[in-house]
């Protein structure tokens, strides 16, 4: 076989191999939905709209749903009643708590939103960009279920429903009682 043909064959084989590898490896979307899952939850410390300090580490022993939110985001507004219902169902047992991290939003607007739409859980509005970067948040809404030991059990990109959350919690509790 001539050298040129050999070279062409080698290049072709390398390209075919690369196509096969790249076609079967994890996509970025897979990474987005699994990022942080199983890892220790990054810090969430901040001042709530009522002015008190809230720290995720103080919640050890309970499940926590960390919800990244903005009043300017339509899916966030749409999912809010679902979160309110989820909080109401679990308020008696106090087995799950919610914290909202308002991202790129005005504190007064967020406060007004929660007055008008309900939601009595802590809402952090100051310096939340740092928290969003620590959690690798790309676009709101994103929600993370944190185990009583402080690890991330699940990540949800986009709006959630009450059924989704209950299902997620039930599956997580089954694995991490």
């Amino acid at each position, binding site marked *: 076989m001539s050298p*040129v043909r050999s070279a062409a064959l080698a290049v072709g084989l390398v390209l075919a191999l690369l196509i096969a590898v790249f076609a079967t490896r994890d996509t970025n979307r897979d990474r987005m939905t699994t990022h942080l899952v199983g890892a220790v939850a990054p810090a969430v410390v901040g001042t709530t709209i009522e002015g008190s300090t809230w720290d995720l580490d103080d919640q050890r022993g309970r499940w926590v749903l960390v919800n990244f939110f903005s009043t300017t985001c339509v899916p966030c507004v749409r999912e809010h009643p679902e979160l309110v219902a989820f909080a109401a169902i679990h308020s008696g047992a106090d087995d799950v708590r919610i914290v909202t991290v308002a991202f790129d939003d005005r504190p007064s607007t967020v406060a007004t939103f929660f007055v008008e739409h309900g939601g009595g859980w802590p809402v952090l509005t100051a310096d939340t*960009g740092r928290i969003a970067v620590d959690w690798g948040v790309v676009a709101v809404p994103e929600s993370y279920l944190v185990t009583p030991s402080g690890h991330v059990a699940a990540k949800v990109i986009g709006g959630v429903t009450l059924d989704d959350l209950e299902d997620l919690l039930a599956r997580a509790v089954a694995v991490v009682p």
Partner: protein
Amino acid sequence: MRPGDSRRRLTWLLVLVVAVGSLVVSEVAERPALTNADRVRDLAGDFACPVCQGQSLGESDVPIARTIRSTIRTMVDRGRTDGEIRSMLVDRFGENIDYMPSGDGLVGLVWVLPVMVGGVALAGGVASVRRWQGRGGGPAPRRPLVLAAVVAVAVLAGVLVAGTASDRSAGDTLSGDIRSSSRTLLVEAGVAAPDEAVALYTRVLEIQPSNAEALAYRGWVRWRTGDAAQGRSDLDEAVAVDPAYPDVRVFRASQRHADGDHVGAAGDLVVLDELEAPPIVGDLLAASRLRQRIATGLAASGELLAAVELLDSGLESRPDAAALLAERGWLLAATRSPELVERGLASLDEALAVDPVDPYGLAYRAAVLATLADRPEDAAIDVATFTGLDGPPAELVDLLVGTGLLVAGTGSGS
């Protein structure tokens, strides 16, 4: 081996040494120390915005890109190395956003593959030429002619490169530093201190003298920081360059309103209403109450019709804007003309139907009901709702205290 062959080989070796040596020297030569701002800009340009197509962190203006830039700036200011910052970004957002991936693992193929392909192509080319030469038989190639052509192309390329060299700053790449593009400068200016922002906008205008965005924002920064004359000039020029640029209409309306030119300010907002402005412009207008303040200024100067037209213009694009309906009702009722008071009350009712806890709607309607419509009981209901609001605007509290509907300092109805 003939004597000519060894001389030719020596020449080629010399050319190779000079070429490789030049590349190495240019790469390792000492470069001017980077400022923190330079480092932030360079790092932001080396990573893709996680949610945008084809834009770097430095070029994108979406919230997450701005937030990541701010984080990079904080880390740089705290003395973190570029490696630590790169590692943090890849850890948080994945290696897909890295324009300069590491040479490890599968990703390292992006560095190795071009070299491999180039090597194979070169080997193939050499083999083809040798085979072609081996065939012989044909006329000898006219080497001097080929050599002259190659030299001509090289000289031409050199002249072209030299011609563009004056457009580049020290440290920029041959093709121009994309990270210093006007888009990047505009983004940097958006988060810079006023003096630095004006300098950055001026740099953009040196590259693109008719950049409406740079003119508008430089004018706005200048005007807000006390350089009123230059600010007005920039804003007027931006409107002249691009009459359909929404941001400058808002800026100039604000500037004209502050200068007492309510008619001019209203004109800018009416033009703005006819443009396809991004929703954030409407949100900013609503948050600043600029339209209402201009309408109040117009009404106070006897231009009630123009004031109502300005509010109606805003209501065309946002029919459910309770704040505009409330302002409209208040201005009509404030004429004390019975017919207009009725129309004003209707507008206030409409505002509160849209938003039952709109503070302006509640306070204005209470004042109108109590002082102009002789309905104190209905006014008391609105006052009760108003006092239940969390942090109502001070100007409304003053209004209700002034009309005797609220007791000063107690926050409760009289």
